[in-house]
């Protein structure tokens, strides 16, 4: 496999990376706007969705996880979900015992 072939396997051109960066910048601007504009009950869900979208875009496109071998996704997301699960349980137990 040549280096050029390896690049093609990743499936994105430089223009594609710039497009992703522009989308990320636009989402960041939207996130910051929630601090100044009253989004009402949509505030928290909108912020969470934007954070997750940015996270997944960087991991999938910039870190090439979308185009790479599945085992890397399994390793990374296993660590991530284990972290979310462990700390969600820990935080809820604090809430439980304090209440």
């Amino acid at each position, binding site marked *: 496999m040549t280096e050029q072939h390896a690049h093609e396997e990743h499936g994105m051109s430089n223009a594609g990376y710039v497009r992703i960066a522009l989308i990320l910048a636009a989402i960041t601007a939207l996130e910051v706007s929630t601090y100044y504009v009253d989004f009402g009950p949509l505030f*928290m869900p909108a912020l969470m969705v934007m954070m997750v979208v940015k996270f997944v875009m960087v991991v999938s496109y910039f870190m090439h996880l979308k185009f790479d071998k599945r085992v890397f996704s399994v390793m990374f997301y296993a660590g991530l979900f284990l972290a979310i699960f462990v700390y969600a349980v820990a935080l809820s137990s604090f809430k439980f015992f304090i209440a």
Partner: protein
Amino acid sequence: MAELVQEHGAQHGSTGISNAKLGMWLFLGSECLLFGGLISTYMLYRGRVGDGPTPMQIFDIPFTSVSSFVLLMSSLTMVLAVSAATKADDRSTELWLTVTALLGATFVGGQVYEFTAFYNEGLGFSTSLFASSFYVLTGFHGVHVTVGIIMLFALVAMIKRNRIPGSKSETVEMIGLYWHFVDIVWIVIFTLIYLIPV
């Protein structure tokens, strides 16, 4: 070892997966647990301000937004460096790596300025549980960015002297993975710590 193959200097096991890449993804998975713990601790203590200032009194959202934007753009320059390295374009690789390191240094400089401003406004490390958990979380992240900057400058120097053992593009990609990870951690910190009011 018969099963071990060399492909452009990168070592692969019988599965065809690069050992270095496998190790890096495992490391990043474990880093999720480290930052998960620090973020959870902050979420638990962010309301415990004692006599000190509250997060909403001291956070400078426009300033931190610019810092976040700078770090986000450093991810773009990093991926452009990886792309150039894959095409064996050393000059562009060095250029984009240097730009990435400078953007990272701008972010760290902003963090030092922010910490100094907070300290002058009465938020010392031991002022409150909020202060301690905030400084530990963002400080740990800042140290990660600083380590990344050192690795980027070292990588530029090694490319210039042609001293990279094994695959050049894979080495750049490994540093790139670490850099993007630092960026995604900040994406979470910026939203959960700065944008959600206590």
